[in-house]
């Protein structure tokens, strides 16, 4: 049986207020984008993982990057850090993560901070996909 044009046409994503609110809240508070969509376990696991990773990075004396236009790695470091949203804002306000990288563990701390931000960006994208109905 031949497919009609409507069969082959991809369904457009459902745009709603939630598709804007969930990613925004999820960026500001890691995991909250899932929590407001009633994905309780996923949201809590994401929140615990990302927040713990960020706090461990701070505890290891990791470096937090400021907005800059210099070295490409510094710019990318800033992009990663800012992905952590509210955690980044709080750490900037409290002047945390300003120590010089003095030993190998501090370098791990810096990577923890950047990756926590990048993981939060993945979490934000996932919250968006749930909001538009692309993912259950």
């Amino acid at each position, binding site marked *: 049986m031949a497919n009609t044009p409507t069969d082959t046409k991809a369904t457009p994503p459902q745009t709603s207020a939630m598709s804007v609110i969930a990613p925004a809240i999820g960026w500001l508070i890691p995991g909250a984008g899932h929590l407001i969509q009633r994905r309780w376990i996923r949201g809590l696991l994401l929140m615990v*993982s990302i927040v713990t990773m960020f706090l461990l990075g701070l505890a290891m004396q990791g470096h937090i990057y400021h907005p800059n236009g210099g070295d490409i790695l510094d710019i990318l470091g800033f992009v990663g850090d800012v992905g952590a949203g509210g955690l980044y804002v709080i750490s900037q306000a409290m002047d945390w993560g300003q120590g010089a990288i003095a030993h190998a563990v501090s370098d791990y701390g810096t990577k923890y901070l950047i990756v926590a931000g990048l993981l939060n960006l993945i979490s934000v994208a996932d919250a968006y996909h749930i909001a538009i109905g692309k993912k259950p």
Partner: protein
Amino acid sequence: MNLQLSHFSAAVLFAVFASVVFGITQRSTSREQIRYGLYCFVLFVGGVFLAGWAMWLLRR
């Protein structure tokens, strides 16, 4: 506060958190999420051991 972790424990903790996020975000059903999270964790930790042995061989 100054947390001092060994290289190995820092790498394993990193693997735990990254695997949880990858598992949840990259798969749809709960079963697939657990399986993919465990798969990522094994790859991360396996990569640590492989890199460790590679560096040991290069150093000799």
